[in-house]
């Protein structure tokens, strides 16, 4: 059920109205019911995978808790807990890896060895990456005693399957999300209004900006030779598309959860205002970043063999570099995983390592940067320097988007070269929009994208400055609010594009 289908709209309305109508103590059961209706509508077979992850993780959580309480011997306790943990992790990430990466392994092997094994047609359960990460996060939390195990299978099943988030995140934490899911909620008009507005805003970003930008992106990345002069436009349009598509989807998801009184973790914090790549990853797909930080970066950095490596590095490179080097290594591993997470292809691995290397490099250079800045009398609060940092980061991010979007690494590099050597804006007007209309509307929709981006920019800027926009909305006369709702709603058909043949959000593929 696509997030933009009529069915989904009606589904949400029925779910939300019923939620406040039934007795409060059954509210979580109601959510579980609708989450499973939603998931089963995508296919009964794939639901088995969801059930598998739910049940294994639930059992392992309880088991871990029992061991922690019953086993007196400390080393034994540790060992037994670890066994359970590793087994469950292997099972669940194993399923994910087999379903997502078998074909990548086959094609890579064919490429290297010259063999010609056929690719398999494997089911890919909806949102498998998201619910697997969320469940495994819970498991590790229980393992580290950060959270208590959930004993009720059905309550745990709701945490794994909560329908607004299952397709494209945000990846929730049990400690914050669980409680809210099981609590009873009273209807709160202010929250409901804000949530509805946020949903419309999300659709606006997706349909009016991203879906218009994608036409230009697909045209140029589809024929990089024909549109060789537009490399820069292509990647800018792609950065617009990615942000508006993904964060718009998040606005819809978080807004829908808000209708049920549930506050999900934010996944975006105006990423293009980031002042470094590290900062960017603190603002872009935040829940994936913090997941990686808590469950991959820290554990890897604090592992026994890293400790040995750290001692060795300190001897060889001196205290400061020796201390940072293992962290850089762990960081590279994280971004390798992030790259692989994005898709089974070499270009995504390059994309991940590119990010990882920049962060590692700036980590190593940080003390030197500090000295240089002191010597040049540049303060971090200098607005000019701040702007420079933002632009520099934006350029670095855009370079990474070439790898993310181009068909392969070679095309990405070629397009970057053309972007500089063959720059030619006039090609833009020859891009066709719509099946039969040719280029008649090209200029109009370019304007729509630009104006749309300007609106997003102004709102982001105000949010970045800490203005309370929702409070401002709350203070308006109800008639103005009505106009805002109706106007925003009407812009979707007036200026939006049909959302592709598949009608999907990019991040729903993961």
């Amino acid at each position, binding site marked *: 059920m696509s997030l933009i*289908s009529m069915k989904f*709209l009606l589904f949400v309305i029925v779910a939300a109205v019923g939620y406040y109508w039934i007795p409060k103590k059954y509210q979580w059961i109601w959510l579980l019911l609708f989450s499973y209706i939603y998931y089963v509508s995508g296919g009964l077979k794939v639901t088995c995978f969801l059930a598998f992850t739910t049940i294994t993780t639930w059992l392992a959580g309880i088991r871990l808790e029992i061991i922690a309480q019953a086993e007196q011997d400390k080393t034994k306790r540790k060992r037994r807990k670890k066994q359970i943990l590793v087994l469950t992790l292997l099972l669940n990430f194993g399923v994910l890896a087999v379903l997502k990466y078998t074909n990548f392994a086959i094609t890579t092997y064919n490429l290297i060895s010259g063999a010609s094994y056929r690719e398999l047609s494997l089911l890919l359960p909806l949102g498998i990456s998201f619910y697997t990460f969320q469940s495994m996060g819970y498991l590790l939390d229980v393992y580290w005693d950060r959270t208590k195990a959930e004993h009720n299978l059905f309550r745990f099943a709701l945490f794994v399957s909560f329908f607004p988030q299952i397709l494209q995140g945000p990846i929730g934490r049990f400690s914050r999300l669980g409680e809210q899911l099981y609590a009873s909620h009273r209807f709160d*008009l202010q929250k409901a209004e804000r949530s509805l507005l946020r949903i419309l805003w999300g659709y606006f970003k997706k349909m009016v900006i991203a879906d218009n930008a994608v036409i230009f992106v697909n045209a140029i990345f589809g024929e990089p030779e024909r549109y060789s002069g537009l490399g820069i436009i292509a990647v800018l349009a792609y950065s617009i598309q990615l942000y508006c598509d993904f964060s718009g989807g998040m606005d819809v998801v978080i807004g829908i959860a808000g209708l049920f009184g549930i506050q999900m973790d934010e996944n975006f914090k105006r990423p293009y205002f980031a002042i470094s790549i590290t900062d960017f990853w603190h603002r872009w797909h935040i829940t994936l970043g913090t997941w990686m930080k808590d469950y991959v970066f820290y554990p890897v950095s604090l592992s026994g063999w890293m400790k040995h490596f750290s001692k060795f590095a300190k001897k060889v490179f001196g205290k400061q570099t020796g201390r940072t080097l293992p962290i850089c290594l762990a960081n590279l591993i994280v971004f390798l995983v992030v790259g692989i997470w994005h898709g089974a292809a070499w270009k995504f691995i390059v994309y991940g390592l590119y990010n990882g290397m920049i962060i590692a490099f700036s980590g190593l250079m940080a003390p030197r940067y500090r000295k240089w800045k002191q010597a040049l009398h540049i303060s971090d609060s200098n607005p000019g320097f701040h702007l420079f940092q933002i632009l520099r980061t934006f350029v670095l991010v855009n370079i990474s988007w070439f790898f993310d979007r181009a068909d392969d690494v070679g095309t990405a590099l070629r397009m970057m070269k053309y972007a500089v050597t063959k720059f030619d804006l006039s090609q833009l007007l020859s891009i066709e929009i719509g099946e039969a209309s040719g280029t008649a*509307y090209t200029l109009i929709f370019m304007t729509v994208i630009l104006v749309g981006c300007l609106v997003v920019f102004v709102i982001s800027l105000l949010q970045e400055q800490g203005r309370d926009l929702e409070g401002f909305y709350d203070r308006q006369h109800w008639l103005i609010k009505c106009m805002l709702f109706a106007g925003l709603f009407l812009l979707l*058909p*007036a200026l939006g594009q049909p959302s592709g043949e598949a009608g999907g959000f990019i991040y729903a593929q993961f």
Partner: protein
Amino acid sequence: MRNFKKIILPGLCVILILAVVNTFMNYALIPYSYVRIMMHQAATEEYDTVFLGTSHGLNGISPKIVERETGRSCINLCLGGEYPRDSYYLLRKVCEKSIPKRVVYELDAGYWCTEEGQRGDFNRIYYEMPWSSAKLEYFAAKMLELDFRAALFPWFYYRGQFKEIKETIACKQSQDYKEYGSQAFQKPHQGFVDGFIKNNTAPSDKPEEEIELWNEKQKNLDSFRYFEKLVSFCRKHNVELVVITTPVPQETLEKHQKEYQQMNAYFSAYMRERGIPYWNYNLPEYKMDDFDYSLRIFSDYEGHMNGDQAEIFSLRLSKDLNRGSYEVEEIHNRDDN
């Protein structure tokens, strides 16, 4: 009372604004279409024979001629972008008024192996169909799966028409529109006349766009599912069902010989299994002596006939329909031997 002021009143207000703007946009942007005439006729008059299918049927079958030749009242509800799902609900709509004696389904295999995309006039049937239980079911079967803008804002697909707002409004205020007339559709190269599209093809270059050929591997299961529903609906109500495929240019047949052969083999077997007569007018045994098969007199490679050819074809189709469905196949098979 508090609820009324805080929720219901603003809610109604938003709905009111949306409804007013929506009505205006639908009126001003969506041009008058012959689908409106078809829907009006289907909802108000009774027919013995109903033609369902695609643009090939719309361009190739003159209901007026078939009516004259068979002595049974006819309506042609073939449309470009009409998948078996749409055909099924069109039939349901017709049957709300009266149940026909015969349904002729014009089969274009391309509609059985492509996704029902958001192309052409696909939304038109939904928009023009008067509300009834058949439309509600159609809504549930088709519109629910689509982008919510398709169902809520039918003008969405016509927003590019804003330059023609004046003409559209003028047309909709004309007497012709109010009387479901077809004057608006008379253009030099084609017109909606006698209940079908009559092409006046100039013997010039023919567009050779990509033709959707039969590909068994990409079967659209929904098309098959809804055709099955159509078949059982006809059986239940004792409606005779005939399936036909209209002639395409000789050039196209030669170029895509393999696909056309596969398509014929597949659907002949499929229809035979279900005991449904299938007349494929591209087969040698169905050849018409007086029909010109050269690309010259078609509008395009895909096989949209011109008006004169359509009349010849309609005469032949009437003759075959008069013979009775099973006899036709027998006669052709005998000729063949």
